[in-house]
């Protein structure tokens, strides 16, 4: 249908700007604008992808080992939550196209709840890493083999989640009270309530899961320790680390632990003394071979560089992790803000099949945020 015919059908809806000839022109202009904005977003993230690729290409092993501190289950759960929110956003566009206001509001509320869950899970992930000292490079305080007590953190997270649930319910009540006369304000509060409740649920669920997973690991570690204590205590410590890193795999029996030790990769290179030894070995290749045979370690140049870079190198991985997920999370927060506004407008009947640009544009933005997560997830969580 041509634009002019379109214009004849229904001249000006109330949100048509004066400088557009038709509503269709306004819609297409807005959509093009949003797509151009999305292209700038792609390039904005490209800088971090570039940093990631540069450092991963230079030190693949370190990235693999550092990534073991991330729990793929949490990442996968968040991926599915975001995919679900993408579905509901696409669905809400369908609803507004078909003039289904209830469906539109329901889908948008689910979207916001999903966004909340995502942020809740992220809170759990960040908190636990902070407790472990897994900060960005400049603040990296993690010590190899240390096992900080995560108990208080879990407790704090649990209370945070509960408080969020409370705040969410409170927001809902406030919405009912304050929004008695204004449907837009009421739904804005409902939208906020859905988000915050979602965040509470995400926080609690993520927290409970991590706590459970850690319990399993402790079992595995205890078993490993008992078996290897007198033989090679040193290596058992590494086994622990590996087991902790591999926390996603429920390590239950001894064989699995031994297998992990067999594939021990970084070995002692994270320890400064060993690092210095390794450097000395550069000068005498003969010794390296001897070492290799006995310690079952392949000394590549990459490891030597890593050793010389100092023990805090994995901090660079976490720098990139925090930069990427942090900037992504800021985008989620921005999206939440816009969606609350969209819900409020939708409740006030602003949208109809001839005017739903804002829903569509915000949806496009949300899909792009999802798209970026689709790449972040495997690159950060699934490095093998």
């Amino acid at each position, binding site marked *: 249908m041509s634009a002019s015919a379109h214009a004849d059908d229904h001249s000006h809806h109330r949100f048509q700007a004066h400088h557009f000839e038709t509503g269709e022109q306004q819609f297409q202009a807005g959509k093009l604008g949003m797509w151009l904005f999305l292209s700038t977003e792609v390039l904005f993230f*490209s800088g971090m992808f*570039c940093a990631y690729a540069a450092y991963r290409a230079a030190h693949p092993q370190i990235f693999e080992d550092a990534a073991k501190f991330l729990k793929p289950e949490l990442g*996968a759960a968040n991926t599915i939550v975001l995919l679900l929110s993408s579905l509901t956003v696409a669905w809400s566009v369908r609803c507004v196209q078909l*003039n289904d206001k209830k469906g539109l509001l329901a889908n948008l509320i689910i979207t916001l709840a999903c966004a909340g869950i995502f942020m809740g899970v992220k809170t759990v992930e960040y908190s636990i890493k902070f407790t472990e000292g897994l900060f960005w490079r400049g603040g990296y305080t993690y010590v190899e083999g240390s096992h900080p007590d995560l108990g208080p953190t879990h407790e704090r997270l649990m209370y945070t989640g509960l408080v969020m649930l409370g705040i969410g319910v409170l927001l809902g009540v406030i919405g009912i009270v304050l929004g008695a006369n204004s449907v837009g304000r009421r739904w804005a509060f409902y939208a906020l309530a859905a988000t915050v409740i979602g965040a509470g649920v995400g926080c609690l669920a993520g927290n409970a899961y991590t706590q459970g997973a850690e319990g399993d690991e402790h079992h595995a570690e205890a078993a490993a320790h008992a078996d290897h204590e007198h033989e090679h205590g040193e290596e058992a410590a590494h086994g622990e680390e590996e087991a902790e890193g591999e926390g996603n795999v429920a390590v239950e029996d001894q064989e699995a632990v031994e297998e992990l030790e067999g594939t021990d990769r970084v070995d002692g290179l994270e320890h400064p003394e060993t690092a210095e030894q390794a450097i000395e070995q*550069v000068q005498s290749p003969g010794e390296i071979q001897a070492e290799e045979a006995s310690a079952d370690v392949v000394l590549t140049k990459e490891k030597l560089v890593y050793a010389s870079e100092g023990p805090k190198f994995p901090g660079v991985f976490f720098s990139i992790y925090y930069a990427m997920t942090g900037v992504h999370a800021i985008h989620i927060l921005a999206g939440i803000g816009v969606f609350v506004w969209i819900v409020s407008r939708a409740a006030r009947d602003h949208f109809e099949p*001839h005017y739903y640009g804002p829903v569509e544009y915000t949806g496009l933005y949300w*899909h792009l945020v*999802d798209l970026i997560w*689709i790449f972040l997830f495997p690159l950060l969580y699934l490095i*093998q």
Partner: protein
Amino acid sequence: MSENHSHYVTPLPVLLGTFLALVGLTVLTVYQATQDHVDFGRFEVGLTLLIAAVKAILVAVIFMQLAHDKPMNSIILVSSILFVALFLSITLMDRAEYKPQVDDYVIQHPKTADSL
């Protein structure tokens, strides 16, 4: 009058089917990455990214409706990705080229353990 808009309305089964496919691909990629049976070695990264790309295309084409949109919008998305590729490829190529020199320097000037 209410049906005259030319915008494409995505059927519900397509939306739901896409979502299920996306979830399936997510499960697949997690399984692939955490299983120990088949090791794809150096192709592991490529495989993971391939699955991610398929997911991304599904989202872009169906959820973002590029399949039924003006070609200009697809061109914008594709060209932004091409420019990302340009940026990454040249930068990474250069880094790979000068990395050996940096590595040699690093090995000769090892940091002390408690540096920064």
